[in-house]
C-alpha cells in the first residue's frame, strides 16, 4: 500500500522534474518570463512529490531512504534541485536553472532505471546518524552541484567575451561578476555541509564499528574530494583566485566528487557500497 503510493510520488516527481528541466531549457531559448514561471512551478511541484516519496520511504523502512543506489541518486537529485531553488530565490537568476536542473533531472532519470530495493533493512541503518551523515553530505553535494553549474556558465560566458564572439548565449547569460559570486556562495555554503557530513560519518563509524576511519575506498575518495574543495576555497580566500581558474578547478573538484559517489561504488566496493549492488553476491 505504502509502497505503491511511494512509487506514484516517485514517478510523479520524475515526470515533473523532467518537465521543469524542459521548461528551463525553453526559457534559455525563448526568454519569456511566463516560461520560467511555469518551469519554477513544475519544479516546486516535483520537489513536493519528491519529498513525499522520501518521507514515505523513511517512514515505511524506518531508515533514511538512501540504502540503495536508486534512492541515493534520487536523494542526490532532490538536494541538487532544492539547492537550486534556494539560489534562484536568492539571486533571482532563472538562467541558472537551464544548467543545474538538467543535472538534477538526469540523476533522477538514472535512478529510475535502477531496480527497486526489496531487502529488509539492517538494524545498523536504523540510526539517526545515517540520516544526519547522508543528509549533510548530500546537501553539500547539492550545493556544490550548483557551484558546478555556475562554473560551467562562467566558462561559457568568459570564453564568449575572450573570443569576442558575443552570440545569443552571451546575451542570455548573466555577467561574469554575478556568476563568480554565485559560484563562490555555493562553495561557501556547500563546503561546510560536506565537512559536517564527513565528521558525522566518522562519528557514525565509531559508534557502529568502533573505528573513526578504516581506509574504505569511499572514505579515501571523500577525503580527496574534501581536500580539493579546501584547496579551491583557500586559494580563493588567500590568493584571490577567481574567475576562470577557480571555475575550472571547481569543475575538476566536482568530477572527483561524482567519482567518489558513483565510481567508487561501482569499481571498488567497500562497506559504503549500496545494498542493491551487494545483493547479487548474496551478502
Amino acid at each position, binding site marked *: 500500500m505504502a509502497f505503491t503510493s511511494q512509487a506514484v510520488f516517485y514517478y510523479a516527481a520524475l515526470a515533473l522534474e523532467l518537465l521543469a528541466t524542459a521548461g528551463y531549457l525553453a526559457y534559455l531559448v525563448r526568454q519569456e518570463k511566463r516560461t520560467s514561471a511555469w518551469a519554477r512551478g513544475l519544479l516546486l511541484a516535483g520537489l513536493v512529490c519528491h519529498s513525499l516519496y522520501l518521507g514515505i520511504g523513511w517512514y515505511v523502512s524506518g531508515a533514511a531512504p538512501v540504502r540503495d543506489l536508486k534512492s541515493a541518486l534520487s536523494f542526490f537529485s532532490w538536494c541538487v534541485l532544492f539547492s537550486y531553488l534556494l539560489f534562484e530565490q536568492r539571486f533571482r537568476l532563472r538562467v541558472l536553472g537551464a544548467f543545474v536542473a538538467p543535472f538534477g533531472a538526469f540523476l533522477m532519470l538514472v535512478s529510475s532505471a535502477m531496480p527497486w530495493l526489496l531487502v529488509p533493512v539492517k538494524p545498523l541503518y536504523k540510526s539517526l546518524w545515517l540520516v544526519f551523515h547522508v543528509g549533510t553530505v548530500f546537501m553539500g553535494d547539492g550545493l556544490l552541484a550548483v557551484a558546478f553549474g555556475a562554473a560551467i556558465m562562467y566558462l561559457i560566458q568568459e570564453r564568449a*567575451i575572450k573570443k*569576442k564572439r*558575443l552570440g545569443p548565449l552571451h*546575451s542570455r547569460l548573466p*555577467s561574469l*561578476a554575478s556568476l563568480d559570486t554565485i559560484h563562490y556562495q555555493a562553495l561557501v555554503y556547500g563546503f561546510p555541509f560536506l565537512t559536517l557530513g564527513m565528521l558525522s560519518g566518522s562519528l557514525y563509524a565509531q559508534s557502529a564499528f568502533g573505528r573513526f576511519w578504516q581506509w574504505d575506498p569511499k572514505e579515501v575518495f571523500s577525503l580527496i574530494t574534501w581536500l580539493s574543495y579546501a584547496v579551491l576555497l583557500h586559494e580563493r580566500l588567500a590568493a584571490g583566485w*577567481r*574567475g576562470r581558474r577557480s571555475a575550472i578547478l571547481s569543475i575538476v573538484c566536482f568530477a572527483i566528487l561524482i567519482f567518489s559517489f558513483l565510481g567508487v561504488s561501482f569499481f571498488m566496493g567497500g562497506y559504503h557500497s549500496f545494498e542493491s549492488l551487494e545483493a547479487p553476491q548474496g551478502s
Partner: protein
Amino acid sequence: MIHILDVGMNHESAEVSLRESLCMHPDTGGRVSTWIREEEKVKEGMFVSTCNRVELFLTTEEPEPVQRQALALFAELGGRSEEEFLRSTYCLKDEEAIRHVFAVASSLDSMVLGEPQILGQIKTAYAHAARSGLTGTILNRLMHRAFHVAKRVRTETGICGAAVSISYAAVELAKKIFYTLEDKRVFLVGAGEMAELAARHLQSQGIREICVANRTFKRAVELAETFRGRAVAFEEIVEELASADIVITSTASVGYIITCEQVRRSLKRRRNRPLFLIDIAVPRDVEPSVHSLGNVYLYDIDDLRGVTEMNLNQRRQEAIKAERILDQEVITFRRWLETLSVVPTIVSLREKADLLIKAELKRSNGVLERLSSPDREAVVSLVRSVAEKLLNDPILFLKNRAERSTIHRYLDMTQNLFNLNRDQGLRGAGGPGENPGLSHGQE
C-alpha cells in the same frame, strides 16, 4: 466612408535637403495645424516632423483631393515645387497608413532600427495635436494603439536590445563583466572625443570615480573637472592600473602606452579583480597580448565595431518578429474602425430613450412631488433601468454585427423601428453622410 491618410517622407524616400526644407520655417508646425483646422475636407490631423521624417496623418472622406492639397501645402512651406515633393513622398491610405503609423512608432521604419527616440517624438507631436483639438475619435485611438504596439514590439522582440553604437556597446560589455558599475573606477588615458563619450555613458551608470591622464596635464585637469574626477600625470599610468576597473585609451601615440608586462605586474596587486580595457585609439594604445592575461579583457575599436555590427543584424532578425505583431494589430484596428459605423445609431438610440424619460418624468412631476425624496429617486432609477434593459439587446445585436457587410440593413431597420431619423433634430442619426470620426468623446 472615412479614410485614414498618411502623406509623408522618410530617410529613404527623400534626400536630406528636401526633408530639411520643411524644418526651415520655425512655424511650420503651426501653419500645418492651421491648415488642418481650416481645411474642410480634413476631419482630423496630426503632423510629425523630425530630422529623418515628415508625416502628416489625416482622416478624410475624400482622400484624393486632400492628398493633392497636402502636397501643395508642403510645396508652399518648403519653397520647392510640388513635383519634387510628389516624387519623394509616399501617400498611404487606410490599412497601409495604419501599418505605417505602427511601424514608425515601433521604430521599424527608422534609419537605426529600433532607436528609441522616435516614439517620444511621436508622443510629443500627438500631445500637441490633441491639445490643439486637431485629433478626434479615430486618430486618438490610432495613436494610442500605436503606442501600445510600440510597447509590445519593445518588450516582445529584441529590436531595442543590443547596443548599436560603439560607446553603448562598451558600456554593455562592461556590464557583462562587472554586473554593476556603481562601485567601479574608470581610468581615461588620452582625451579623445569618443573616449569622453564612452566615459559619459559609464558615468550615467553611476560609476564611483573617473580618473584622467593626458600628455598635456592641463587638458587632463580640464576634462577631469567636467567629470568631477581627478587628473593624474602620464607617468602614473602604471600606478593607476592597479586600482582601475575600466580603462579607456584614446591617445594619438604611435607606440603602446600600456604594455602587457605592466598589466601583468598590476594583476597581483589587483588580486585578480577583472580589468576591462577599451582601446579606441588608432594606432592602438594597448599591447594586444594583454587580452591573453587571465581576468583581463581588451577590446579595440574594431572589436567594438564588430559587436555593433552583429547587434544590428540581430535587430534585423527581430524586426521580422515585430512585423507579425504589426499584422495582428492592424487587423484589430481595422475591425474597430468597422464597428464605428454603428456608433451614431447606438448613440441616437440612447439619446432618444433619455429624452423620453425626461419628458415622461416631467409630465408626472405632480405625482412625484408628493413622494419622499428616496422614493422619488427609486422611481427615477427604476424608469431608467427599464429603458436600459429594453435597449440592451438591440445595442448588443448591432455591436455584434458591426463587422458584417449587411450591417447597413440592420442600421436602417433600427432607425425605422425606433423612428430615429425624424426625431426632434437628434444628432447623429447614422445617415450615410454622418461622420463618426468627429463625434468626440464617444470612446
